[in-house]
């Protein structure tokens, strides 16, 4: 995804979060401080919203981990609306209490695809209260060059000799999950069984360490990956669909494919930080951007489809074509949607990732 950027890199981490906490000025009444992914708040959408409502929108670009860290550092202050992925809400809420429940009656539910609304409701509910509303969704799968397309059809094929030295993936949890599925396991089914999950992760760890010589570099930002693929230095990668479609538009021999074991589906949500200072504006923004025509603008900018009902009609034709080419009926039904991550799992995964990074 274009926007899933360097943000985490360029921040020197906690220092920034603390400084933000110390010096962020108090929001005036008519201001919406939005923390979101790149592409989710295009300039023209922001301008239109400001014109219609008179509310000033301040956008901070971020990613899941960065968003959570920032909100954790301030106890849920500093922003009025956040857009974390749905699987990363409950665990975070239980540990750090950084969100407040959403008043669903204030959301124009008619604008949102019912199936997705229900899925998000289930996965972001805690103690009978809902913490997320679906916004944008997408998948991660494989971006391959036509030259190797028939040899790379699943995540584990990234370790084959055919693409030695010309492979890139991230060293983050989606890679662990993807490889687990490709190895014939079902990590999601093992989410609530730590012992079983650990044994699956051990298998994945061995595979990733074996695979390491094949990898050119672990990509850390969307732009970095795009340039690696554009120059032909990397011919197969595990990555987000939007990036694949963007490259396909530039060079038809590069395409995004759903792996045999299934693409991994994520839904980014709207969530209210616990100490949001302008909840009204947050609801206004949600109802505004979920209008089909506005949502389509976000899709055209970010490359990712939204949960808005009827937005497809207004999306650029080539983007829709690329999407249909990547997902036939079977591939769509085979998407593995991330369930909420139980607390404690991520530290286990973290150690696996650390060991893979340090292995030589």
């Amino acid at each position, binding site marked *: 995804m274009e926007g899933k950027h360097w943000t985490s*890199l360029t921040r020197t*981490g906690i220092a920034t979060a603390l400084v933000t906490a110390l010096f962020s000025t108090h929001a005036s009444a008519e201001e919406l401080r939005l923390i979101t992914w790149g592409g989710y708040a295009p300039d023209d959408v922001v301008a239109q919203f400001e014109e219609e409502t008179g509310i000033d929108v301040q956008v901070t670009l971020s990613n899941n*981990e960065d968003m959570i860290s920032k909100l954790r550092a301030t106890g849920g202050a500093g922003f009025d609306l956040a857009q974390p992925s749905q699987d990363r809400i409950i665990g975070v809420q239980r540990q*750090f209490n950084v969100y407040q429940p959403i008043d669903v009656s204030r959301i124009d539910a008619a604008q949102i695809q019912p199936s997705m609304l229900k899925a998000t409701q289930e996965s972001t509910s805690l103690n009978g209260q809902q913490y997320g509303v679906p916004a944008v969704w997408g998948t991660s799968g494989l971006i391959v060059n036509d030259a190797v397309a028939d040899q790379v059809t699943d995540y584990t094929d990234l370790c084959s000799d055919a693409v030695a030295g010309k492979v890139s993936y991230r060293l983050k949890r989606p890679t662990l999950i993807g490889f687990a599925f490709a190895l014939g396991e079902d990590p999601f089914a093992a989410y609530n069984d730590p012992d079983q999950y650990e044994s699956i992760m051990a298998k994945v760890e061995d595979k990733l360490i074996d695979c390491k010589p094949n990898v*050119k570099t672990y990509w850390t930002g969307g732009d970095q990956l795009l340039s690696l693929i554009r*120059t032909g230095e990397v011919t197969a990668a595990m990555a987000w669909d939007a990036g694949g479609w963007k490259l396909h538009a530039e060079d038809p021999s590069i395409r995004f494919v759903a792996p045999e074991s299934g693409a991994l589906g994520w839904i980014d949500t709207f969530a209210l930080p616990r100490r949001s200072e302008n909840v009204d504006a947050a609801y206004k923004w949600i109802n505004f951007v979920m209008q089909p025509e506005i949502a389509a603008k976000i899709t055209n900018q970010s490359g990712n489809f939204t949960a808005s009902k009827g937005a497809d009609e207004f999306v650029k034709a080539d983007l829709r074509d690329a999407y249909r080419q990547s997902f036939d009926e079977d591939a769509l039904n085979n998407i593995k949607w991330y369930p909420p991550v139980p*607390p404690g799992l991520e530290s286990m995964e*973290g150690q696996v990732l650390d060991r893979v990074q340090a292995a030589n």
Partner: protein
Amino acid sequence: MRPSAGKLSLCLLMAPFVLWIVLLVVLPHLQMLRVSFHVRETWDTVAFGLEQYGNFFSESYYWRTFVRTGVMSLFTTFLTLVIAFPIAWYIARLARGRSKGVLFLACLIPFWASELVRTYGWMILLRESGLFSAILQAVGLADGPVEMLYNDAAVIVGLVYNGLLFMVVPLVTTLDGMDEHIVEAGYDLGGNHWTVLREIILPWAMPGVVSGCIVVFMLTLGSYLTPILMGGKDSAWFTEQIFTQFITRFNWEQGAALGVLLLVLSSVIVWAGLRVTGQNLRKVMG
């Protein structure tokens, strides 16, 4: 000026500095030290203990990265000194008039760009589709694209480049003050190049050498972008592990412990370096 007014103006002058040190350096470090001893019992209760430090020693990937980072930083510092010394010697002793200023400026100019830009510059040169690879192929030294990025050598190249200025400046400053005659005297008394360098020039330049080494070593040890961007998959660097613990693992306790350990490591190495070279911090930095 009356004494009380002088005192007041001194206080006012010092206030921003003291505030800066206390708010942004001392307090966060104390807080980090405290967090590093936290042990999570459940999701909302915290006890104190040494668990994080225990993890550091029991998980080999932590201390191996730690040792690796230390050794590579020392090597980088040494290499920077070896490369910077002739440059500094030329600028301080041989260049005359305007060329002296021009040469000094030439060392300074790359630092007008940020570390990120400098690192990208190196990546453009070293990558498989980059300039060096293209030149090697053009002159027939290589059959196909050569990948020079994403290994330890590339990381060291980047780090040396980033440290060069901070080594050249103190060396030039100390060498500048050296009296021409003592070098001549060294030769007159029958010394060759090597003995003159070892017995006269190096001892004279030692404060510059040590302060340059301290600065470069600290910068290298704490650098984040260069090892990650240029080292890729094999560049496990300690600062990266700290960042990962804080930001992607939400494990502030472990991150804080690793941060404290890094601070201890750098302090110990600097202290040891001062002892070995017989310098003291006041003399070197003064």
